[in-house]
């Protein structure tokens, strides 16, 4: 079984990422709790801390720092496990880690000093301190180094194993990092070319619509960068945990290739209500957005096919008997499974957000916040927690014992209940018109607004339950790191079913798929982007005072 394990050096690398991720979870979660409390109107932040400052911390530290560090650490472990990591690659991986960490600390310092309350979507022409933008640049540069380490790992493996198809999980990691690399070019462009010179005072004006378009070119693939590692666990790890096989290696790869093609040229669906963008091109990107639902439909089928096949193989042959055969008491399955179930309403809500006309009802209301607390903060995070229950013991040379398992199951239930209340009341309040990204306000004091405030209590109740969930998770993390019994925990990697069809080799044709992805991006963005630049209004100066950065 020792051969099953990662080397000490590889473990240390991934574990460093886990530490940053879980510390971020605690800080970011606390900010979230405070936000829900402020929004009841019964609680004021101490020491003159501004609501939008903690909102910025919450968004940056959970959506960017927690996710990025967890994903890159998890992906390094998958790559080490399936294709190996050389000493030189490991040096570069550590450089990536430190560059990201230094960038994170720089940006976080500016937020804490109140110089960068611009939320994580930047909001030009609100202007933060230049160091905030430099810090975020470093985070991105660090992830790029990690990208190329992963690319090099697979390249080396392919050279040593000519003619063989790459290991499924390594294939998936590389797809995710290609999506990340292509999409971060947009945010890097707006930060380096627009925000930094403008915030330093080298140029006087910023083109707002260009900056927003470049941001959302990155902002939607970003959510797939979060989701795909969860899919890696669903496709490549869960089948092993439930004692089954991968339903189809080819379908799994097909789903990931479709994500590569369709997850990027869709940013306009975040800008549906903005002036200056032709409605024809908005609709084109709405169509492409819907196309990205296809690989998720494929995934849903593959998952339940895997579950049913595994159950029937164990002798549960009635129509739904196999459902009972699933290992509900194994947290490695239970937590991601609850996440999967949450993805059903979450995905449906996503289609609502992305559609041309329905978007008028929900745009920038707290419905949207409710939506991504189902997708990111339930589906993705519960899967990440589900991964960490075995990954952290693997990395620390300990066992997933009965206590960890019990804590994990309680944590999952607490999380599901908390999110039901919080996300549920966000969805309803949003439909009634309550805005997102807003501190407590009675607005014009009308009856309509009073109705929203009732749901804000619901959010505070849900938020408090979720924070209890975070405390349980932090305790479990520390227990798994320092106190769980020593031993050898399995790194579960699923195998393909024996009777599965061979995977077409065309899936390994990187030039082809990256080429099509680039063509689709060029199709969806070139003409509207040229339009935006040609028809630009006068640019905007910096506005610092409005966010207290002066």
């Amino acid at each position, binding site marked *: 079984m020792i051969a099953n394990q990662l080397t000490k050096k590889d473990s240390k690398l991934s574990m460093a990422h886990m530490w940053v991720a879980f510390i971020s979870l605690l800080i970011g979660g606390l900010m979230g709790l405070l936000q829900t409390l402020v929004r009841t109107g019964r609680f004021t932040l101490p020491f003159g801390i*501004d609501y*939008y400052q903690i909102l910025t911390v919450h968004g940056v530290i959970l959506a960017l720092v927690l996710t990025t560090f967890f994903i890159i650490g998890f992906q390094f472990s998958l790559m080490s496990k399936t294709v190996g990591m050389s000493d030189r690659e490991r040096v570069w991986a550590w450089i990536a880690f430190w560059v990201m960490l230094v960038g994170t600390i720089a940006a976080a310092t500016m937020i804490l000093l109140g110089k960068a309350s611009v*939320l994580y979507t930047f*909001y030009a*022409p*609100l202007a933060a301190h230049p160091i905030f933008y430099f810090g975020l640049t470093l985070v991105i540069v660090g992830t790029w180094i990690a990208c190329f380490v992963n690319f090099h790992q697979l390249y080396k493996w392919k050279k040593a194993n000519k003619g063989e198809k790459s290991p499924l999980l390594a294939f998936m990691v590389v797809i995710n990092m290609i999506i990340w690399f292509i999409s971060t070019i947009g945010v890097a462009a707006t930060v380096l070319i627009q925000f930094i010179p403008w915030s330093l005072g080298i140029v006087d004006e910023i083109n*707002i*619509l260009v900056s927003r378009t470049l941001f959302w070119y990155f902002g939607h693939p970003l959510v797939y960068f979060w989701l795909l590692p969860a899919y890696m666990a669903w496709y490549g790890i869960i089948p092993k945990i439930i004692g089954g096989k991968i339903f189809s290696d*080819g*379908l799994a790869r*097909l789903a990931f290739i479709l994500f590569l093609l369709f997850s990027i040229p869709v940013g306009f669906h975040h800008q549906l*209500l*903005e*002036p*200056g963008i*032709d*409605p*024809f091109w*908005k*609709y084109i990107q709405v*169509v492409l957005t819907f196309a990205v*639902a*296809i690989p998720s*439909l*494929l995934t849903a*089928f593959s998952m339940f*096919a895997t579950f049913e096949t595994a159950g029937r193989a164990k002798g549960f042959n009635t129509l739904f008997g196999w459902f009972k055969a699933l290992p509900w008491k194994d947290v490695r399955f239970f937590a991601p499974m609850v996440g999967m179930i949450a993805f059903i309403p979450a995905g449906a809500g996503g*289609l609502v957000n992305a*559609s*041309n*006309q329905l*978007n*008028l*009802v929900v*745009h*920038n*209301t707290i419905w949207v916040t409710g939506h991504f607390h189902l997708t990111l903060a339930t589906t993705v995070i519960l899967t990440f927690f589900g991964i960490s229950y075995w990954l952290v013991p693997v990395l620390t040379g300990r066992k997933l014992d009965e206590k960890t398992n019990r804590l994990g199951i309680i944590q999952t239930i607490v999380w599901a209940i908390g999110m039901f209340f919080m996300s549920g009341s966000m969805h309803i309040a949003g439909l*009634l*018109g309550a*805005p*997102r*990204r*807003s*501190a*407590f*306000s009675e*607005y*014009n004091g*009308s009856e*309509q*607004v009073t109705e929203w405030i009732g749901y804000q209590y619901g959010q505070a109740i849900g938020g408090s339950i979720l924070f209890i969930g975070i405390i349980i998770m932090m305790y479990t993390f520390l227990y798994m790191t320092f106190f769980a019994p020593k031993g050898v925990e399995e790194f579960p990697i699923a195998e393909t079913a024996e009777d599965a069809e061979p995977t077409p080799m065309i899936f390994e044709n990187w030039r082809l798929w990256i080429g099509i992805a680039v063509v689709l991006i060029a199709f969806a963005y070139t003409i509207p982007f040229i339009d935006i630049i040609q*028809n630009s*209004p*006068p*640019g*905007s100066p910096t*506005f610092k005072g*409005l*966010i*207290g950065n002066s």
Partner: protein
Amino acid sequence: MHLHKYEKMWMLIGGGALLIFLIMLGVGAFYQGTKPPSCLTTIDPQNVEAHDSFKKENLGMQQLDDNRYVVNVIASAFNYDFGTDEEGNVVRTIRIPVGSEVMFQGTSTDVVHGFELAGTNANMMLEPGYINTVETTFNKPGTYTFVCNEYCGTGHHYMTATVEVYDE
């Protein structure tokens, strides 16, 4: 690559539903004219008065004919400027007869703002440098609240105004 029979059915139903939904959205937008707010007109944010609609006297509600109105608004942190009434008081409440078709037309003089009339489908982004418009019909009397739903600074949640839809 082989696809399971059930999988083909599943993808056909799922993909088909998406396609039908997309066609509905497309027909709605381009045949029935319910496009999302996407006005392409630009404006100098430092000098919005140069545009007729945003001259002081043209702000607020303007009647076009029997039951059609335009409401012009200038957003700035943290206020919606609907001009002044006959007595010279600042307009905080817009009164609209029930059944009216209203086009809201706005722009921003500083940062990005949201313009949402809660309880209706009037919702759009106001960005410096652009005019944006959204139309809605008021079929139900009552009090409606304008909220800025796009972060615009520390006073963002105080940015509001009121619409009163009245029975004649």
